[in-house]
């Protein structure tokens, strides 16, 4: 259930009947479809323009040099930016090995007839659609309180890792599935063990797909604010995190905090921070698409 679109070639759609001309009802339908398309496109254009116009004046060095402050003219987002970097690094550390290993298990070792494996698959599909705030509740209830880990980078990164785990698993599985079976069979025929086959043949071939999935998962984690609200990041943090158990802030959260303040100057600041966040996300997604185009092999 990924959001990415299929990019395979398809036969072009037939053009409207020439000669007789397009019937009015058919033309009206086509215009209706174009109008629907327009809704999304116009909205996107207006959103991006509005945010850029509103935040342009505050897009300067203060944004990443200063820390949050009560005075809008002095405020910046350094703690949020550094916090986000820490958070994403840690999230990647937890989620990438777990997700990729799970994908390998499901694709290479698991017998789909066995009950436990079907449960695992159904479970992953369910988790992919659970609201993000429920993960925040999980983090609050179990990680922070029951396990006593507290409200810090560790809890937040673990929670975000669990949130994007299904995305990594699903993307990695598709990448592994795309490797032709002949490669595996050839390797086994030459005497390699199962794991040698996976480690030396299948995984290297699946790396572009997995890298794309990883980048998309991390960019999703970067934009999440809801779970972090429940994990003690709502208080304004004016210092860079200094360790696994440190309090932290994150860019989406900082944006949320500024948005909640009444002064118009903070709205400008929020817009500038939004521009920063969107640019970073755009770069990450473009990188993912680039990797997918450039490195995915046609077998």
């Amino acid at each position, binding site marked *: 259930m990924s959001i990415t679109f299929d990019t395979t070639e398809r036969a072009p*759609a037939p053009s409207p009947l020439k000669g007789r001309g397009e019937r009015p009802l*058919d033309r009206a339908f086509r215009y209706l479809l174009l109008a629907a398309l327009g809704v999304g496109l116009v909205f996107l254009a207006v959103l991006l323009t509005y945010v850029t116009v509103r935040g342009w004046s505050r897009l300067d060095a203060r944004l990443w040099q200063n820390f949050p402050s009560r005075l809008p003219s002095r405020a910046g987002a350094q703690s949020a930016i550094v916090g986000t970097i820490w958070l994403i690094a840690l999230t990647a550390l937890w989620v990438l090995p777990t997700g990729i290993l799970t994908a390998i298990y499901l694709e290479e070792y698991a017998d789909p007839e066995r009950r436990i494996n079907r449960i695992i698959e159904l479970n992953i599909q369910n988790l992919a659609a659970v609201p993000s705030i429920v993960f925040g509740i999980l983090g609050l209830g179990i990680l922070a309180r029951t396990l006593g880990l507290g409200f810090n980078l560790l809890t937040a990164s673990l929670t975000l890792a669990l949130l994007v785990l299904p995305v990594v698993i699903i993307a990695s599985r598709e990448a592994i599935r795309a490797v032709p079976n002949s490669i595996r069979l050839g390797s086994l025929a030459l005497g390699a063990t199962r794991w040698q086959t996976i480690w030396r043949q299948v995984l290297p071939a699946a790396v572009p797909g997995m890298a794309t999935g990883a980048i998309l998962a991390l960019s999703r984690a970067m934009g999440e604010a809801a779970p972090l609200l429940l994990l003690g990041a709502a208080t304004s943090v004016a210092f860079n995190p200094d360790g696994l158990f440190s309090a932290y802030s994150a860019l989406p959260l900082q944006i949320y905090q500024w948005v909640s303040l009444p002064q118009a100057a903070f709205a400008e600041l929020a817009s500038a921070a939004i521009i920063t966040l969107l640019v970073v996300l755009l770069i990450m997604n473009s990188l993912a698409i680039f990797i997918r185009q450039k490195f995915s092999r046609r077998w």
Partner: protein
Amino acid sequence: MTATTANLSAAGTARRSLRRDRPRYGELAVQGLLFLAALVSIATTIGIVLSFVAPTVELFTGRGVSLREFLTGTDWGPLFAQPTYGVLPLVVATLVITVIAVAVAIPVGLMTAIYLSEYAGPRARKFLKPTLEVLAGIPTVVFGFFALQFVTPLLQAVLPGSQYPKIFNGLSAGLVMGVMIIPTVASLSEDALSAVPRSLRDGAFALGSSSRQVSTRVVVPAALSGIVAAFVLGISRAIGETMIVTIAAGSQPNFTLNPLVSLQTMTAFIAQAGSGDAPVGSTAYDTIFAVGSLLFLMTLALNIVSIRLVRKYREVYE
């Protein structure tokens, strides 16, 4: 040579087992590790359920909040000095905003999918698909900000005086949320539409149908279960969305169907109560989990329906 012994069968022919006589421990270890990794996902679900159960049960048994009052009461004020625990304002608010969002997302999403699948040429597709992916990738905080700062003033300027929306209102949040969900609905519907075999379309075209007739009378009905699955998933996303409603729809629960006033949804309440300093074990803390359970159950039911529908449409063509 001494390690492999010949197995002498009764007939006297030497037969050597092709298997090694000791197992490859490395392989077994790897297999075990992989299985453990897979169990993390199960542990997550168990964790989610567990985190809900104890405080919810505590709320209804230990603190004497009656389940009936919770589910049918219309006054939600658990954080007040004299707390009331009727969750209906939150549920109704969630449903009102979801209906608005879905009224935008379903027609627009489906029509976008039809256009992409049946009408768009390769050049249009190369432009449209990345655009939709961009829309899908925008963080929800940004949508919330846009709803509050742009859409609400716009509505205030455009709607007549009798319908003047308050600064925090459900309509603005619902409309923006609808646009946010469009990529989800469009992407899944397009998957469903593409799965319909070309032969069905070709047959209809050969009989003289226009693209419109093929789309509406052949392809969409054929892909219906996948499309409905897309709709259900869109509804589930709308119900579970937090940031847009927290920012734009306000934190004042009103038990009303009027979208022009502040409407606090279930997710917005969880965000508000959870980001405050509710001490562990207090009633206010437990209400977070109780409302969370309700939210989780609603989205779980919708997700299961959606997964079943997707499985059904996949089986038809494979």
